[in-house]
């Protein structure tokens, strides 16, 4: 497997794992508070919508010329990746609260238990929509990453394989423990996904813009190292600054 393909599977796996952990928290809260029937119906309906999106958009992307595709995909991934990285750096430097699945689960559960019961087509509507929206929104990010990564690297099936491994793993563990996966190092995974998305975004944007990388595909490793180094320098700078301001406000973005 080439360096590019290995990164493709890894990035897709990590991004999907993070999003699946978040979706699982919502599905569990909906299931425990409103009944498993409505929660699983929401999960199934959202999965169907996501599958249709992949089936329609996947083949459509493969007919776009590779240089144009890499330019557009590279720019999108770079903007998208910088969003992830920005939040991850703010979390790592203490300017933003760490993502806590236990806390989110408790909040979702309390809200779901307090909502009025309305039955539609035999399912509890609140539980259905809570589960449907959660899975759809988290899943859209996975679809976006799988399709853009896969098409620009020339292998949507390989990207889908990385996502499928994460899906099986998180679902399996979720069913076994029936609790939010709070021990998954979610914040570190998000940092890693941000680094990967930014790395590929830089690499493909440069290629799509018509410039050549010294060392061709091997340059990905250099870009990866540069993005990691820059991110850690930024975390260190912000941490030092945060320590100097004892009552610094928390970033909500």
């Amino acid at each position: 497997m080439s360096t590019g393909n290995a990164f493709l599977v890894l990035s897709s796996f990590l991004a999907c794992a993070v999003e699946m952990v978040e979706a699982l928290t919502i599905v569990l809260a909906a299931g425990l508070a409103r009944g498993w029937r409505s929660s699983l119906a929401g999960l199934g309906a959202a999965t169907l919508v996501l599958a249709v999106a992949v089936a329609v958009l996947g083949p459509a992307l493969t007919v776009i010329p590779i240089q144009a595709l890499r330019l557009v995909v590279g720019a999108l991934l770079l903007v998208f990746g910088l969003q992830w990285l920005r939040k991850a750096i703010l979390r790592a430097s203490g300017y933003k609260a760490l993502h806590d699945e236990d806390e989110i689960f408790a909040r979702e559960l309390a809200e779901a238990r307090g909502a009025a019961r309305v039955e539609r087509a035999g399912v509890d509507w609140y539980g259905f929509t809570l589960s449907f929206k959660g899975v759809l929104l988290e899943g859209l990010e996975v679809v976006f990453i799988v399709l853009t990564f896969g098409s620009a690297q020339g292998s949507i099936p390989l990207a889908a394989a990385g996502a499928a491994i994460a899906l099986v793993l998180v679902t399996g563990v979720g069913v076994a423990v029936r609790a939010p996966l709070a021990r998954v190092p979610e914040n570190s995974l998000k940092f890693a996904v941000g680094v990967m998305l930014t790395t590929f975004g830089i690499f493909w944007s440069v290629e799509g813009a018509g410039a050549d990388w010294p060392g061709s595909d091997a340059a990905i490793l250099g870009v990866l190292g540069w993005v990691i180094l820059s991110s850690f320098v930024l975390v260190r700078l912000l941490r030092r600054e945060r320590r100097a301001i004892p009552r610094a406000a928390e970033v909500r973005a």
Partner: protein
Amino acid sequence: MKWLRSFGHFWWNFVVGDDWLVAALVLLAIGATAALAAADIAAWWLLPAAVPLVLWLSLRRAIRSA
């Protein structure tokens, strides 16, 4: 009309996110890379150099607005 606005708003939030400046500066840097490449000048270094600066600017904005 309202549905269209919500749809556009969702995708804007999804792709561009919390700081539009990041998207604007990334597009500017990609445009500059394309311009240099078209003039046969080595341009691969421009985006890797721009990304930490863009991140730094965006982080400063986020912290300032907190």
